């Protein structure tokens, strides 16, 4: 097995964070060589051009130009990105929707190792994720937004509006798409609930997340269920009724 070495650039607006991450990489991720660090987006851009790294650790929240702004300003990107953030904030949803890796501060050693090993194994193959992120960040019409679904075999980018519903079972989430296709991921349904909340999805049951677009009617018999355009019946939990009511009536 090739012992690959990845050349990395770290971008963070706080020097001690840069130092800390450098040390951690040195200690726990010997495959990574830090070729440059940058304290803001502008110098980060210079470093990226100059060093053409394999991997970039990019802080999302930076004063002035954010990490995402920096990415947006680039014409192309031949590198993988591992985002670093202190707390859920603006932009993290786009990262999640694009199935990109991110680390939370303070950085957990195991998570760092896992992210790095993924970057090594799929090196250069996350262009689709990056493209999707860029699309989301470019504020295209929401109808064009896609979500990255990582299945056992691949990461598929599916237009959000084509997702009819999600159903969880045994810690998997099944995506039912327009056209009858089903994709299964290993993320929990509640994670998708957060991601898709802005796209008209709502939780009607502990195991079901539904796209409002595909709800034909709310049948109140038999404890209540939603009849979807594809003919499926999705149960409505008693304690989700008011949430379903709100979701179906607002907007």
């Amino acid at each position, binding site marked *: 097995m090739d012992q690959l070495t990845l050349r990395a650039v770290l971008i963070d607006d706080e020097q001690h964070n840069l130092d800390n991450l450098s040390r*951690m990489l040195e*200690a726990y991720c010997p495959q990574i060589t830090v070729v440059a660090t940058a304290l803001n987006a502008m110098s980060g851009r210079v470093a990226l051009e100059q060093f053409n790294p394999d991997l970039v650790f990019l802080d999302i929240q930076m004063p002035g130009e954010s990490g995402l702004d920096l990415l947006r300003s680039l014409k192309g990107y031949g590198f993988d990105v591992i985002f670093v953030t202190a*707390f*859920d904030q603006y932009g993290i949803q786009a990262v999640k929707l694009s199935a990109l890796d991110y680390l*939370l*501060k*303070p*950085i*957990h*050693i195991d*998570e760092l190792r896992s992210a790095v090993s993924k970057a090594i194994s799929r090196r250069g193959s996350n262009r689709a994720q990056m493209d999707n992120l860029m699309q989301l960040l470019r504020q295209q019409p929401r109808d064009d937004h896609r979500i990255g679904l990582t299945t056992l075999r691949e990461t598929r980018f599916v237009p959000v509006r084509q997702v009819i519903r999600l159903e*969880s079972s*045994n*810690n998997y989430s099944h995506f039912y798409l327009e056209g009858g296709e089903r994709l299964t991921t290993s993320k*929990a*349904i*509640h994670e998708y609930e957060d991601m898709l909340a802005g796209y008209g999805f709502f939780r009607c*049951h*502990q*195991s079901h997340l539904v796209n409002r677009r595909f709800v034909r009617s709310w049948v109140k018999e038999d404890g209540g269920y939603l009849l979807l355009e594809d003919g499926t019946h999705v*149960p409505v*939990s*008693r*304690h989700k*009724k*008011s949430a379903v009511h709100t979701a179906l009536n607002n907007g």
Partner: protein
Amino acid sequence: MGGAKLAWALLLVAAPAAAQNFGGDNTPAPTGADWGNYSTSYAEPGPHSQDPFLETAVPYKGYYFTAIDHSPRVPLEPEPSRGTFRELNAYDSADVYVYAPRLNPDNAGRFEYRVLLDSGRVVIPWSPINRFTDVFAPNGEGKPCGLLGGYHTTWGHYIEAELREKKTGRFISTTVIYWQEVKPALFNIYMPDELGAFLEMNEFLQHLTNNYYLRPTAEDTLKWLRRYARNQLDTATGIPYFLRLKHEENNLVFYLNAHIIERQALEYQLVRNGSTVIPWRSNEFDLPLIWLRGLQTGKYTLSMRFRSQRHNVTGYSFAVEPAWTETVWFKVAVMAGVVLLGVLCWVLIRLRTRVVQERRKRERLNLELKSIRSQLNPHFVFNALASIQGLVNNQQIEPANRYLSEFGRLMRETLSGARKDFVPLATEIATLDTYLKLEQLRFPFVYHIQTASDLPVRDIEVPSLLLQPLVENAVKHGVSAMLPGGVSSMPSGGIIEIGFTRENANFTCTIRDNGQGFDTGAPAGGYGLSLTRDRIRLLNEALDGRTIDWRIESSPGWGTRIILIFQQWIN
């Protein structure tokens, strides 16, 4: 009636003070005013133009009518032997006066008269004429004339007055008065839309100017046949026996077969649904018609009579049917509608009030829940930081890193838990795990978290940080005081076991420590317990159908077990 004429007369004749019964002997002299109440009729003078003849003054009293079809029913024929012959009807019960023009005090001695009842009974035998009027104006002679007296009899009988020449016994003149009973007779009824046609009616115009009896035309009959079966129509008049009018046909003309000259002659009364709406009154027109206007819904009887014969009443019944808005069904429907609307409003208001109350209650509960939502115990937070500081200062870099990121994760969960009321059970378990790891830095104890495999921990949602204070209690009051093999009888030191099991739609969380335990009968425990108690109480109120039951089992020396049963939590 041959050449009989009607004339209005002003006679200065002696009039009776009281009605005579078949006698005229004591008739006082009439005044001019009295004669104003009579109409006189007289025959053409007979062939002997100088002969007197008999004339009558019929009670008139300012009105008059003739019912033209009622010719006298008298078995007497005009014969030359009777002299000038004249017969007429009296319709009033008052006396009819008989007098003789051209008979005056100068020639009175040549004549005598008698009065018979029904051609048989002698009322007045042959007698001389010895009373006279002063002037007899109508015949233009301007001279007094002989007065034979005033007479009346009962209805259906007649009085016959005869005048003859004493010397020869030749009959000069005969007059017969028949007391005719009469009731108003309907000719036809006209609806509002027919009034125009009615006024243009040829018969009507003719009737105003001539005294001839009207016969219904084909159109008169047809108009009723369009609305009624033949057997519902009066065979004589062709008018329905009982008239049913639509609501809008509330304007009717009843046209009588009579010659009304003055309105007082005709009287009518209108009764609606058994009560009189128009009491007996004189007609409004000098015409043989009664015009009823603005009739409301109801059953009516129109009674008509001639003033001179008030005992003879003609009744006619008809009904104005209710408009559809007046029908019972409509009223019932409207009433039902109103009641229904009221009930509906009431229900809606009730429902709305309940919804509002429910919402307010929920808002209140949520507010209270938020205010008592668990936060990490500050004591723990700073102790954990101090523990990590200790690791750093001991150069234990990797443990320090691990605990620091665990602490960060706990803080993150707490903070996002503060934004979300519910978190997946998996998250809550991870939080407990992180928390216990950090506490392990401070106290030597072991813990196990066991989750049943059939529990969908990533799907079930639980109130965030509900369990943390209880686990914290297990640490603080349970195992923290125990040293491995120390004061406690447990040789292995403190153990905390947390288990999650499932029973159908319910799941149970058990938190067990082997610490010193406490007396559950003692007054409310620490802050953590009372906080949890309040929170669960509020949650049970606010949650729809789901509940949390919980109990604490503890005894000194045995440890503590807290059991929480989440009822109907899994669906």
